[in-house]
């Protein structure tokens, strides 16, 4: 049984790696094959995987994870400013600082569970936001956001004589260099930044898989199922939850660092509660507590954000031009609230729909459909945890 599970995992890992690395080719037909979007898939995938280690495994619902993302971004940009444009030191600092920050916040927030925990993390995130936005302006550059300038020291790099801002690199490979190929009428874009993020995503996924299958991961699942019982049997659960919190904070820091690597600036708006809510949505949409779910959720949301934001009234009119005029105008008038700038409304509705009708996320929905096709009544899939179990009791 154990052997089989490991084989399954190996299959999943191989497939995942291949799919991610072939991303530019696979997604090009869907209009999503350009570097910027692909990088975002990877970065938010990492963010959601990390969030899932906390929420999916222990059931502690944090509403402040964007704070760690922001901290990661700020530390990475500072590393670009002070030390070198190489991304490795920046990422290391981002992960370490985010880890320390989450240790501090986790230590305080995890004294309470349930709703108190959510409120505390939300309050901490808002506090970090106002710290970054105004209080700590010397470090964060306040409203404008932290940016590179020409006269940053950059001790390890040679003197900058080009007169333009240097770009981030991985030992000489510039992050924004892209190789383009024409293939069957499509332009395939292979971008260094994307492949760097992709490798990070694969590593993050592998690590998450190891955590899920480890005794530590089992312990976290036990905390989600019934924390009281664990306490009564003499297990101190605090170190486990704190470890999970710090790990997920470090994942968020890595995601924030990668954001800065692909686009070297950091702003306070990354720490706002909407950003925290978005990662919660990604995880829940894909399926909290599953391995693959958060990555799918992140990709789904970022893809549709991209598509929906581009649709405007003219596009809508051209779609519905076959209808009679009055009806066409009515439909366009209704739909224009949901597309373009109204994307957040769609996101909010989607959020509610998923929580109401599909608490287990897309993966659970998919497994229901598969079961229905096979003609089975109920499934006991190993991947999907029971969505009705009480979290963090």
């Amino acid at each position, binding site marked *: 049984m154990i052997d089989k599970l490991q084989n399954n995992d190996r299959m999943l890992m191989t497939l995942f790696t291949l799919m991610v690395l072939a991303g530019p080719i696979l997604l090009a037909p869907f209009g999503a094959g350009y570097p910027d979007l692909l990088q975002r898939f990877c970065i938010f995938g990492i963010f959601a995987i990390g969030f899932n280690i906390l929420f999916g495994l222990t*059931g502690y*619902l944090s*509403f402040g994870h964007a704070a760690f993302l922001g901290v990661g971004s700020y530390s990475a940009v500072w590393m670009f400013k002070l030390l070198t444009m190489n991304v490795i030191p920046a990422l290391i600092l981002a992960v370490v600082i985010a880890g320390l920050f989450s240790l501090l916040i986790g230590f*305080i927030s995890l*004294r*309470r*569970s*349930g*709703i*108190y925990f*959510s*409120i*505390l993390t*939300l*309050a*901490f995130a*808002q*506090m970090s936001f*106002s*710290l970054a936005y*105004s*209080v700590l302006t010397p470090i964060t550059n306040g409203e404008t956001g932290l940016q590179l300038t020409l006269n940053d020291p950059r001790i390890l790099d040679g003197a900058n004589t080009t007169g333009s801002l240097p770009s981030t690199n991985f030992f000489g490979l510039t992050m924004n260099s892209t190789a383009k190929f024409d293939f069957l009428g499509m332009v395939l874009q292979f971008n260094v930044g994307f492949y760097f993020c992709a490798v990070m995503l694969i590593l993050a996924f592998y690590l998450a898989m190891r955590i899920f299958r480890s005794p530590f991961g089992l312990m976290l699942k036990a905390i989600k199922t019934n924390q009281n019982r664990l306490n009564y049997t003499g297990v101190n659960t605090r170190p486990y939850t704190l470890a999970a919190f710090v790990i997920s904070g470090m994942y968020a820091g890595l995601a924030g660092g990668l954001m800065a690597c692909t686009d070297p600036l950091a702003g306070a708006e990354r720490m706002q*509660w*909407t950003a925290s*809510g978005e990662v*919660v949505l990604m995880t*829940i949409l894909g399926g909290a507590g599953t391995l693959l779910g958060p990555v799918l959720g992140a990709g789904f949301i970022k893809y549709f954000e991209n598509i929906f934001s581009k649709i405007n009234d003219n596009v809508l009119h051209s779609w519905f031009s076959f209808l009679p005029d009055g009806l066409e105008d009515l439909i366009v008038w209704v739909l224009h*609230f949901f597309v373009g700038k*109204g994307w*957040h*409304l769609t*996101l*909010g*509705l989607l*959020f*509610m729909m998923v*929580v*109401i009708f599909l*608490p287990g996320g897309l993966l659970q929905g998919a497994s229901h459909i598969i079961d229905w096709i096979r003609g089975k009544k109920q499934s006991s899939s190993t991947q999907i945890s029971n969505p*009705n*179990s*009480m*979290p*963090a*009791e």
Partner: protein
Amino acid sequence: MDAILLQILNGLDKGSAYALIALGLTLIFGTLGVVNFAHGALFMIGAFCVVTLQRILNISTVTIDPTKTDFLGNPLKVKTPYIIEWFGEGAGMAIINWSVPLAILFAIPIMLLVGYVMERGLIKHFYKRPHADQILVTFGLAIVLQEIIKAFYGANPIPTPAPEVFRGSFDFGVLIGMAENAVIYPYWRLVYFAFSALVIAGVFAFLQFTTFGMVVRAGMADRETVGLLGINIDKRFTIMFGIAACVAGLAGVMYSPINSPNYHMGMDFLVLSFVVVVVGGMGSLPGAVLAGFTLGILESFASMNQVKGFFEAIYLPSIDQIIIYLVAIVILLVRPRGLMGRAGVMED
């Protein structure tokens, strides 16, 4: 002395807003056991009731006044709101001038309806679901409400002035026998404080002295037993949800002259109100009110120059922006149940 008094007064208006929202949150939580992340959105909807009423009152007929011309020589268009046509110059202008207080009457039925629909349409289905689901669905609802308001009213704050009588400031110090110009205080903030004190007193009196309130309090203590006595407690709790929505909405209505309504004001206040509820003690109505005023006043004290200077000396600039969070952290570490809460509420 006068500086301290001034800071206390300055803290009162924000403290009142916190207390009103926290009171509503605690009412919903105490009766239905649901943490409502959409409560800030109700506050915002209240503020936008004022905007809506203002727009309705200002619907105008356009007539061309042949006697006057603009600088190009074209006849000038004159806009006359219908309200002035109907009620005459004096009464019409007065109605427009007093649109904010009038909006209270306008907002009460709307907020009751919004609260009722929210409870029956959505939250009812979430009583048996985990708390995480309740938080998430109300959070989603908050986003939706906020975005709907943004779609219809735009992203910019819309100014809603107070009635002209209350627009200026007055010398509060003289009233209590202090030197002149020592304590200057805007009228509207005092009105806001008086209003919220009235609403809070009203809610407490309603719960304390009416049969309905008695049943609700009994239901808060032991819902099942009250239900077994043959009382339809669910219906009463739904009404309480409507009342809580109403309290939040009225807080928003009266706050609109202090802070021009914008679509994200709800979330800004919600986070702080949650902190207030946690500090006051989950499920304790007096705790929510006490913590609301205390934190509001504390925030205004922290924005004093002397206090700020002191904290700047120990490398904590702009302490006023984060003081509430710091207090909340200390309270939670020292006294986890909050100021007036019972131990173990909502721990699971």
